[in-house]
């Protein structure tokens, strides 16, 4: 399956090419046209597999990465990853097309598209990875790229704060998810999701099963902005609108939902899973829609609405997990249809919310504001934008003839069905599901109406607008129009989508079920007058009533200053951790080198000597040692003399040269003991460090005699003696140390396996090359650190760049 590998790598490769090419491309055209080709090609590549996936095929390919740790680059293409892959590349293409007209060439486009491609590759990596460690890496990479994109206009304080908040919360969730993955690994012995699903019966009884479940859910909830972690999403709206449309409504926030869907076969039958996913989803659904009504910023309104819709999908997956509890049965469709509705709504939400975000972007771009108190009366001036808004909002509110109506009806059917479930001690609580869902839908209806009427109806207020409003250029309208075509098209032909896209995804969520065609309900727009339809009618009637009387009940929100309470809590926590870590750090980072050496050496002695004493491996046997030659003794005395003299040296240069004597003598020892590699390295390192030291001494004052207290001096002496004793002990004891595998196998392996007769180098470059590679990276980071510290510090009188 090279396609999937290409799908993951191509965005990264192009992201790497952008810095090299953008100067040349910038002169020809907008950089976006080049970038647009990436998701578009990938979309076509993936779409070619739709027929095969619809037949129930799956594609897996494993590239061995670190097989010794079970970490392999496994790509897996099945129904579920196909939905997400198509969404990421499809919406990605539209968003990039839109961004070409939204962002002017004066912006630093090369950064923008580089981050966007990074994100796209990472997101595709998340959905196509079968290996948990690889999935986690990509997962965190989406957080990082989201951070960069939110802070794209980094000169604005709010952007930076929003980016930091999103990063803090999602990375916190990611770390807990990592812990959950490791627990799953302990329980199952594999990092492969498919193998975990296959062995689920064995894992279920493990003590770490429930902790892993909770930790992984925290990861999913933070990413998908579920209550109470939703606070990052409204702040993330500081990002440019194409980013909000792409990351924060269509793709990244759905990564958590993907995770929940992917792990449904593993955790699905658990009561904890059912309650957590469905109830948190339900609370999020209500809380998001309730708060969206009070927003005055169009993007904030959409942000809360996204939170609410994500809660809806999450809740549906929770309800669908009942199907795992019952297993395959005659009427299992009653419960599995919740998952079906979830997948269906997932796609629908991406279409209408993407269109709405782009619509808001257009209003913001052409009018100069997105505050509904300053907007109004734009219908006549921006008729196309108005149409997009109506289609998107009506679909969001769940009205026909738009796709949101279908999935909303299925959602109602699912929450109604949950009343009859006799598992997980649901009983009377089951009634709460339809009620809360219904109330939340009313609020959804109300904010959808606010979105349309406050922007497009009413009186035009040109004096409050920054620009003279006019219709957007065609290029900008194109993407939302395409999405609107889908909104309407899916309503009329839902079963095409159901058969080709949703059915194979259902097979991924319910892998134990023998036949998936029974899991796939036939979607009807009209199924007679039933409870769902009556609920929708109720939503419309009460929604219109509440919308008309909005001003009279809006003061209710003054009681609920909860939204700010969560933010205050978050801020306080942040402040507390900052202050306490500053205090703690200041306590030990004194700026005094002597102190640092004390930490290092005390730690060294405690750890090394402590280990040897604890493990009782100190054993001496001088009988087998070779005899000591006289020239060796001479060298030792030279070294001792130099070491002692160094302590009493008056000048820095003297001390430095004496240190050199020590170093070169060690090199001599290496020569005597026939270790030419070590001798050579020691000689060169010694020369370079001596040169470095001499350079540094230029800036230091003359060496002052140690004026510290006698006690301090004695303690230093004691520490030094202990360090020396430890090293000597270890050197003597290590001869008889047998706790590790002997390295002598390398002597044979080096020529046969690595084709080199220099054992040391084959170990460095081949057998333990991972260490060497990371050391090289560390070396570079250290070098850049020295460079930035000395070169890029603000000159005297210059202000700090941060404000």
């Amino acid at each position, binding site marked *: 399956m090279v396609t999937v590998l290409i799908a993951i790598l191509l965005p990264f490769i192009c992201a790497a090419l952008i810095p090299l090419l953008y100067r040349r491309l910038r002169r020809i055209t907008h950089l976006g046209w080049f970038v647009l080709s990436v998701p578009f090609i990938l979309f076509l590549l993936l779409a070619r597999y739709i027929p095969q996936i619809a037949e129930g095929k799956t594609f897996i390919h494993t590239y061995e990465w670190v097989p010794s740790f079970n970490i392999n680059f496994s790509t897996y293409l099945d129904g579920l990853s196909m939905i997400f892959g198509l969404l990421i590349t499809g919406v990605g293409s539209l968003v990039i097309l839109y961004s070409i007209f939204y962002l002017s060439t004066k912006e630093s486009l090369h950064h923008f598209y580089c981050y966007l491609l990074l994100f796209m590759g990472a997101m595709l990596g998340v959905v196509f990875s079968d290996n948990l460690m690889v999935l986690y890496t990509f997962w965190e990479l989406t957080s990082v790229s989201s951070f960069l994109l939110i802070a794209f206009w980094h000169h604005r304080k709010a952007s930076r704060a929003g980016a930091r908040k999103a990063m803090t919360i999602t990375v916190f969730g990611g770390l807990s998810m990592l812990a959950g993955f490791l627990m799953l690994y302990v329980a199952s012995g594999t990092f492969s999701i498919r193998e975990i699903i296959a062995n689920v019966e064995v894992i279920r009884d493990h003590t770490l099963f429930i902790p892993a479940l909770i930790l992984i859910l925290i990861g999913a909830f933070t990413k998908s902005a579920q209550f109470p972690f939703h606070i990052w999403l409204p702040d993330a709206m500081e990002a440019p609108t194409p980013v909000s449309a792409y990351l924060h409504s269509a793709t990244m926030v759905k990564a958590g939902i993907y995770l929940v869907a992917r792990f449904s076969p593993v955790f699905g039958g658990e009561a904890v899973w059912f309650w957590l996913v469905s109830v948190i989803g339900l609370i999020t659904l209500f809380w998001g829609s309730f708060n969206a009504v009070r927003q005055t910023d169009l993007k904030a309104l959409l942000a809360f609405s996204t939170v609410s819709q994500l809660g809806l999908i999450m809740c549906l997956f929770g309800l669908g997990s009942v199907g795992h509890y019952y297993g395959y049965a005659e009427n299992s469709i009653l419960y599995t249809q919740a998952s079906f509705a979830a997948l269906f709504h997932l796609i629908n939400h991406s279409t209408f919310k993407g269109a709405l975000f782009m619509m808001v972007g257009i209003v913001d771009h052409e009018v100069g504001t997105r505050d509904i108190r300053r907007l109004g009366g734009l219908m006549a001036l921006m008729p196309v934008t108005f149409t997009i808004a109506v289609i998107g909002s009506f679909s969001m509110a769940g009205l026909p003839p738009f796709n949101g109506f279908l999935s909303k009806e299925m959602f109602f059917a699912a929450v109604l069905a949950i009343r009859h479930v006799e598992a997980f001690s649901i009983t009377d609580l089951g009634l709460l599901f339809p009620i809360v869902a219904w109330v939340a839908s009313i609020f959804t209806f109300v904010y959808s109406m606010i979105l349309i009427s406050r922007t497009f109806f009413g009186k035009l207020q040109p004096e409050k607008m920054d620009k003279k409003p006019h219709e957007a250029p065609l290029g900008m309208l194109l993407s939302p129009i395409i999405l609107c075509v889908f909104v309407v098209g899916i309503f009329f032909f839902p079963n095409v989508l159901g058969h080709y896209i949703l059915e194979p995804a259902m097979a991924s969520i319910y892998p134990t079920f023998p036949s998936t065609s029974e899991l796939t309900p036939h979607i009807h727009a009209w199924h007679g007058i039933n409870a769902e339809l009556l609920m929708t009618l109720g939503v419309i009637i009460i929604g219109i009533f509440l919308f008309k009387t909005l001003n009279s009940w809006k003061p209710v929100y003054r009681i609920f200053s909860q939204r700010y309470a969560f933010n205050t809590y978050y801020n306080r926590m942040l402040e507390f951790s900052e202050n306490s870590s500053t205090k703690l750090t200041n306590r030990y980072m004194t700026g005094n080198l002597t102190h640092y050496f004390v930490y290092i050496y005390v730690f060294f002695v405690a750890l090394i000597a402590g280990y040897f004493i604890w493990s009782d491996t100190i054993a001496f046997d001088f009988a087998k040692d070779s005899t000591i030659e006289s020239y060796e003794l001479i060298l030792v005395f030279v070294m001792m003399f130099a070491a002692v003299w160094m302590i009493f040296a008056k000048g820095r240069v003297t001390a430095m040269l004496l240190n050199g004597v020590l170093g070169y003598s060690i090199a001599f020892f290496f020569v005597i003991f026939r270790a030419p*590699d070590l001798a050579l390295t020691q000689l060169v390192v010694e020369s370079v460090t001596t040169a470095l030291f001499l350079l540094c001494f230029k800036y230091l004052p003359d060496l002052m005699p140690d004026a510290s207290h006698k006690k301090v001096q004695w303690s230093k002496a004691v520490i030094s003696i202990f360090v020396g004793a430890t090293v000597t002990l270890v050197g003597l004891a290590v001869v008889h140390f047998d706790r590790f595998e002997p390295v002598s196998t390398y002597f044979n392996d080096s020529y046969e396996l690595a084709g080199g*007769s220099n054992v040391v*180098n084959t170990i*460095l*470059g081949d057998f333990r090359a991972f260490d*060497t*590679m990371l050391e090289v*990276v560390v070396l570079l980071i250290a070098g850049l650190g020295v460079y930035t510290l000395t070169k890029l510090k603000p000159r005297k009188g210059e202000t700090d760049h941060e404000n």
Partner: protein
Amino acid sequence: MKINDVILRTVTKTIVFIILTLGIYLFFAGHHAPGGGFIGGLVLASGIVLLYLAYDIETVHKGMPFDFKKVAALGVLLATGTAIGSLFFDVPFLSQAHSYINVPIFGEMSFSTVTLFEAGVALTVVGVVVTIILSISEDE
């Protein structure tokens, strides 16, 4: 005060070539004899540092117009690149290949992808050492 460094300069002129040759020799010798990327890089770096000591930064820069930060970055890219490259041949990350090929004049020689990896190490070492020494010495 102007230091009379005629001797240093004259000696450096000859010796630098010996040092650089030694560095390159050590780099290539590493597979079968003492040497290797790290030590080769370090020797090269010390040769370059000697040049900087004998002459001034501008003069050396005219002869070697490299940005040593980029040299270091290139080295890391090469080291990690050969590591990732093995994935494309369907073998685990960081796998190295080697073979013996008969070359005219030199006879049988061994070739190995480790050399590329080691070249990455060497370039990083050269880049980082020179960057550090230059940034400290330029700092006023």
